[in-house]
């Protein structure tokens, strides 16, 4: 594929792997967090971690929008989906995320009309085509997907599509990062920054990380060479004693972000006082809800939802896994109460979460060497 294969060149990958070796301090163990689930996916898909020495460890961060949705919100979604006449729409990977009792896929099997869409605009189209049904979109994602929800709501308002509404679960990436960084037992040396979020919000919101917390962050693209180069840039900063936000993904991320997207978002959304994250608990000002001007499209107002908080099981230690304090197998419920088939924590929910990956692939002993 043109314009894609160039970023997947194996020879260049080997060369970069060599350059990474050259900047490592012998005997030192490095823990780098890739913040975004998209990076986790690339790392997994291309086997990028296999090209790294054993003492460069990648920790999967809180940036998988599906995994961070807490059980109570899934329950709310299921309650709305079960309303008479509702067509419930969401992204495909959301349907398998467990609520306190069921997933949306279970609700569908029990009779709810749950449909997977690739875009919120598809949900709006379904609303247009079914004027006698209530169509609800379960909106999830970080600043990456929030603008598309915002534009869809703008269009719904302009076209006066009254049977469309939205359960807004959009979250923002900076507050959970700050929460991780505030933790006294944090063991991370640097961050692979979320390239697509930065396309919208720019580089500036991340500058506090090197300034206040002394950890480098490199905004990274999603092709394997992007990720390897970003790892190299972080390690080079550490080797040279520098600590700053660098932008590896210059072909897409402007420093100021996408001003028009930010404008639409601020029109349609406002910050929630606090929001619960699966595995991380409540984080203040970490999520979005619909602004007063768009309240009419808020499904949480339109339908009765239980709104009950379902506590993460006490024994679940996703927070510690995310901070890099413990390894998945050190969690008290790992492999016993918490398995991929019956996931408790965020790290087990997504197949690419740290715990699910370890559960499935832990016995694949890599012959990687430490340097």
């Amino acid at each position, binding site marked *: *594929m043109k314009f894609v294969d160039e970023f997947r060149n194996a020879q260049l990958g080997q060369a970069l792997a060599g350059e990474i070796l050259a900047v490592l301090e012998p005997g030192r163990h490095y823990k780098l967090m890739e913040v975004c689930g998209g990076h986790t996916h690339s790392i*997994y898909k291309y086997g990028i971690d296999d090209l790294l020495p054993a003492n460069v460890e990648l920790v999967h961060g809180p940036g998988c929008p599906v995994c961070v949705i807490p059980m109570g919100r899934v329950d709310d979604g299921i309650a709305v989906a079960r309303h008479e006449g509702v067509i419930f729409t969401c992204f495909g990977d959301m349907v398998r995320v467990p609520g306190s009792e069921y997933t949306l896929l*279970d609700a569908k*099997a029990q009779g709810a009309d749950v449909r997977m869409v690739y875009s919120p605009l598809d949900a709006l189209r379904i609303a247009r085509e079914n004027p006698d049904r209530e169509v609800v979109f379960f909106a999830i994602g970080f600043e990456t997907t929030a603008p598309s929800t915002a534009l869809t709501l703008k269009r719904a308002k302009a076209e006066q599509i009254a049977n469309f509404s939205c359960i807004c679960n959009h979250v923002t990436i900076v507050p959970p990062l700050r929460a991780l960084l505030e933790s006294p037992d944090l063991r991370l040396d640097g961050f692979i920054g979320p390239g697509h979020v930065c396309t919208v919000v720019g580089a500036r919101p991340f500058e506090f990380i090197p300034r206040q917390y002394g950890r480098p962050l490199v905004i990274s693209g999603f092709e394997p060479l992007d990720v390897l180069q970003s790892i190299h840039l972080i390690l080079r900063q550490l080797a040279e004693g520098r600590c700053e936000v660098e932008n590896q993904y210059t072909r897409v991320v402007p420093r100021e972000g996408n001003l028009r997207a930010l404008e639409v978002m601020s029109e349609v959304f406002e910050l929630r006082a606090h929001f619960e994250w699966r595995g991380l608990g409540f984080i203040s000002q970490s999520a979005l809800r619909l602004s007063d001007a768009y309240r009419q499209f808020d499904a949480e107002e339109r339908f009765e939802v239980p709104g009950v908080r379902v506590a993460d099981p006490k024994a679940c230690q996703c927070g510690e896994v995310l901070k890099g304090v413990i390894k998945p*197998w050190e969690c008290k419920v790992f492999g016993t109460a918490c398995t991929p088939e019956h996931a408790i924590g965020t790290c087990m929910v997504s197949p690419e979460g740290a715990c699910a990956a370890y559960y499935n692939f832990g016995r694949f002993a890599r012959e990687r060497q430490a340097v």
Partner: protein
Amino acid sequence: MSTSEPVASGREQRILEIIETARSKRPRFRDERITLAHGAGGKASQTLVEGLFVPAFAAGQSAALAALADAGAVEVAGTRLAMTTDSFVVKPLRFPGGSIGELAVNGTVNDLAVSGARPLALSVSMILEEGLDADLLRAEVDAIATAANTAGVEIVSGDTKVVERGAADQMYVCTTGIGAIDPRAQQLAPDAIAAGDQILVSGPIGEHGTAIMLARGQFDLDAEIESDTCSLWPAVDALLEAVGSDLHCLRDATRGGVASVVNELARASGVAVVVREADVPVSPIVSAAAELLGIDPMYVANEGRLVAFVAPQAADRALDALKAVPGCERAAAIGQARPEPPGLVLMETSFGGRRVMDQLVGDPLPRIC
């Protein structure tokens, strides 16, 4: 300068063992309801089959069923026959490169073929929805007749049911087939797979599933891609002729794609499998569509592609024989069986890394065949 990675600590080792024990147990079916995932060919399907069907039906008697091959073997007066059955609920009924009728014949013929059986006869059973357009039915009957003719099987029996509008979606077709197990194919089984075996595929992968997804029209994507549906008996015949008992095991890579088949066989035979991504034939249209839709062609369904495990000394001959079969010109050797770690499938990515290529967990493509 370098030191090897420290061995797993005692606790980590114990937990890995607990997981291993849990994984190797026969899955138990505990779900409250059937979801689409139970039909997707991944872990949920496996739990349904091995946790509910096999214990009830095989109960220590039917070794043929317990083997869970594509077709079961029965011996009648000294002749070994293979028998198999399949239902087809594909939507839309017609798609580029094929239709439900053609699939219904080829799907069952192929389950026989990869069991080493020359397909002989089929039964065809139809469930029709009240109100179905008769011309649509005529077209599918034609498609069934033509496909059976091409595959060299007779249709010897059938059944028709009409259900109320809404109780079925247009039409469903079920076919049952019998075939005579070829004398050259007595050894074909997962047990015959050995470390060192080369793994072949009979052509570019993922075309059927991609054609169906695009034909559903929900993605606003247009591409010239046709289903790969065809009878695999000519390919099996050629392989048996070329390498005989060096052909160890065959599967058609339908639901769940090549990745699922290879996982199943690695598990059943206790070998590890290494697949070389760069050697897997994928047409540019399929890889572009997969890229856009965020799916992996290794998990996309095929309806006319087989995966063969062949003894290493016979691999070149097998590949040459396969390539000489019309429709298999782009057959390729894509990987190898290894002794360690048993049951695991690894992928050497084109980028130069290695990763585990696991069984499918969920359901990316509902009702694909």
